[in-house]
């Protein structure tokens, strides 16, 4: 059992964190296209053939003469845009990239529960406690908080404490990591025929 624990931890880590593969593939494709174009232009320049778009020498010359040909404000804006894009990529690379899910406590396997499944279970339990149609309960689950919004039927008061207890009991029964904190909101406006 202990031997599998590291494996389970690794699986849980994979299932709860984004691999950033879509971004990496997109950047790799862009990089490959740019480098392929540059290689074609360089080969054409070496062979003395006319360039497809711009000869490498003209590109270098244009880069060196950029301040003379482009307004300083435009150059500054483009540079800040480039630096901002770089900052976004650095943040994307270093941030954990958590996926919407919680880890269930079990020793027999690795259990990752999607937030939608947790929300569905909480909504069913809250609707049962409030004696309402399940459609009248809306649950959204984030990393730390489970928001339970209840819209009562007109003329049927709901017991907020009972709903809170039921939701808290369901959360404790699921025993999730990281732990969820329930937050029950009962709407002041009731609906007819719910």
């Amino acid at each position, binding site marked *: 059992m202990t031997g599998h624990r590291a494996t389970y931890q*690794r699986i849980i880590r*994979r299932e709860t964190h984004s*691999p*950033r*593969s879509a*971004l*990496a593939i997109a*950047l*790799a494709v862009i*990089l490959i296209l740019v480098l392929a174009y540059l290689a074609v232009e360089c080969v054409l320049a070496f062979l003395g053939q006319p360039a497809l778009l711009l000869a490498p020498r003209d590109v270098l010359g244009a880069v*060196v*003469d*950029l*301040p*003379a040909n482009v307004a*300083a404000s435009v*150059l*500054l804006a*483009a*540079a*800040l*845009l*480039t*630096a*901002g*894009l*770089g*900052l*976004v*990529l*650095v*943040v*994307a*690379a*270093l941030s954990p990239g958590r996926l919407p899910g919680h880890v269930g406590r079990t020793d027999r396997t690795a259990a990752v529960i999607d937030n939608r499944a947790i929300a569905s279970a909480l909504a069913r339990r809250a609707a049962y406690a409030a004696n309402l149609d399940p459609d009248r309960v809306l649950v959204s689950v984030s990393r730390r908080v489970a928001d339970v919004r209840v819209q009562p039927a007109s003329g049927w008061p709901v017991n907020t404490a009972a709903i809170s207890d039921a939701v808290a009991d369901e959360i404790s029964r699921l025993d999730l990591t990281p732990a969820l904190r329930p937050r029950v909101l009962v709407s002041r406006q009731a609906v007819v025929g719910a």
Partner: protein
Amino acid sequence: MNNTNRVLNRLGILLLGLLLLVVGGAVAAASAFPDTVAAWATGATTGAKPGAGFGGLVGGALRGTSDVARQLDTALSGG
């Protein structure tokens, strides 16, 4: 997707991000403070002219490199 691929994904994104950040920051600094950067380049090398801007800075840096190489060559040959 194994852990090596995950690390490589993030490493590639990080390197490209750092490259864009450094290039964008350098160009922004050079275009925001052209006189300061040109003066610094003039002091650091012998090639750049004051007020020459980004192009002068690049050209000056290249000329400065060749000046250093020439001085090294002279020193090594005993001249």
